[in-house]
């Protein structure tokens, strides 16, 4: 089991106390691609932030790779995330000051378990796998949305994490690019045996996942 969440409850205090997640339990096994879908405000993004350890202000138990997340201190949490979780966002968020290769290398340079040369080799090979091998030296802001998202996927994979969290990864792309990105995500995670959690509105994505979870008003629809 890669991820195990039990009885997750989450409240927003502002503007008034409001329960966003209601007794949510979910477990994800190795190599599984799981989509979470639901209307805006259903709590799917919030669930994603909790599962990705970005938001630790919740009640309940969360274990990733058998590590109890709540027991990690803040600094430990950051490096845990660095090592075990890769992120892909709707707005890809490449850093404009850095070129494509540097963007992919940054998480691994932080992890610092390999030499810069090895990291560079890994990054180039990953960029090749996502079809961006020809763009390594480009400033990231010169790429199209679909291209940036490919680079973001390469960045998410650079530290060889066991879990990939993707928040509306195709939400900002046209249908053609959207299909391409989802296929790429599916392919590459299957070949590397990664577990993937995707929050999405896109019916094509959740109907093509291994498992689709619908969120309604903070509950998981059973």
């Amino acid at each position, binding site marked *: 089991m890669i991820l195990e969440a039990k009885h997750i409850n989450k409240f927003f205090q502002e503007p008034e106390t409001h329960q966003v997640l209601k007794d949510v339990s979910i477990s994800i096994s190795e190599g599984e691609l799981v989509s979470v879908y639901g209307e805006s405000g259903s709590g799917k993004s919030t669930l994603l932030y909790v599962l990705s350890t970005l938001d630790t202000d919740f009640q309940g138990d969360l274990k990733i790779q058998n590590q109890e997340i709540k027991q990690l201190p803040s600094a430990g949490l950051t*490096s845990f995330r*660095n090592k075990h979780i890769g992120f892909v966002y709707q707005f890809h968020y490449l850093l404009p000051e850095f070129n494509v290769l540097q963007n992919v290398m940054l998480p691994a340079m*932080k992890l*610092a378990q390999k030499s810069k040369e090895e990291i560079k080799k890994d990054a180039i090979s990953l960029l090749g796998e996502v079809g961006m091998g020809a763009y390594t030296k480009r400033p990231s802001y010169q790429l199209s949305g679909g291209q940036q998202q490919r680079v973001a996927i390469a960045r998410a994979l650079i530290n060889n994490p066991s879990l990939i969290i993707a928040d509306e990864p195709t939400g900002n792309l046209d249908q053609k690019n959207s299909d391409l990105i989802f296929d790429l995500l599916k392919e590459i995670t299957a070949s590397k045996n990664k577990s993937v959690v995707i929050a999405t509105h896109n019916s094509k994505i959740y109907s093509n996942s291994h498992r689709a979870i619908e969120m309604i008003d903070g509950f998981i629809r059973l």
Partner: protein
Amino acid sequence: MSKHVFNKTNLFIALQYLSARKKQSFLATIGVLIGVTTFIVMINFMTGVNDFLDDAVFNGSPDIIVSAQAKENATKKSFSIAINTIENTGKIDSVLRKNQNVQSFAHQVISPAILISDTRQFPGSINGVFAAQESKMVDLERRLVQGEGFQSLSKENNILLGISLANRLQVSTGDHINMILPNGKNIQLKVSGIFSFGITTIDNVRTYVSANVLQNLLGENDIVTNVHIKLKNRDDVSLKTDVITVIDGVSTEDWKDSNKTIVIGNKVRDILTWSVSFALLLVAGFGIYNILNITVIHKRKDIAVLKTIGYSSNDIIFIFLIQSIIIGIIGAILGGVLGYAISYLISTTPLDTSDFIIVDTYPINFKFSYYILGFWFGVLTTIFSGYFPSKKASKVDPVTIIRGI
């Protein structure tokens, strides 16, 4: 797990940010540069003037002067202007020898006189000195413009003149002048040296002859009118009162009494230097604070991304703080270089002789410690002004940023 924040990766990210905002980084550096340059130039110049005055005044005059009080009954002298002499010099000497703070002291015979050259005549106050003692008090060799110093007084009837007085008398070394004392006696003296302290008030009136010359002319062999004292620690003038309580019939004066305007002038220059430099660096600091603050606001998303891909709050603080420190270090080094260049230019600029000071060029103090001080002054300003924006950056919560889109 958690490595030290000072590492190549964080430095690389910081440098990348700096070079992505070349114009702003450049302007911020210029801000620090101007602050440090001004500090260096001002402190070099102001302390240059202070040191020059201190050196000229305190080297040219003693720290404490002991002189005889006017006697009520001076009728035993045959001339109308009484010379007040110190009776018990032996006792004074023994007090001074015992005092730890006394560096050296010298006896003097001081008398008014009229100096007459071939063309001019001026009244003056003549210092009769004992060459061996006086050379420990005043470093006249360094001040000589022409001729010889105190050692020339031990030979014939020689006189040493301040440069302004020599100019007014229209004499140079080797010329002869006449000296007439109030008792009518006169003597011909040879000018053996001309000196300049650089201060008009000294160079206009100061003359040295051998004490024996004056003693002979006054007809009293062992008289002494003043004792001049040089202190090890000039700020401790307690000796001034010690002497009065032990010895009767003398009065004392210290350097603060005689040089009030210079002491105040030094203080004013110090205050000016520090306040102007501080104000400028404050402005530079605000500039850096602003630039970093705006960057942090613009870069909230990027900071959030850095946090999600594994960079901790301390990494973020370092990444932003090091940017301002780099600006500070570069600005401070360039400011030091420019400050030196400007100070050097000033030091070679000819200065019109004023009434008060006589120098060829502006006095500048190139002391190295001021450059170190200026460097730290600049760097600390940037650390201080960079800290708060960096702290703010580290507090960016990745969830709210990503959710906020």
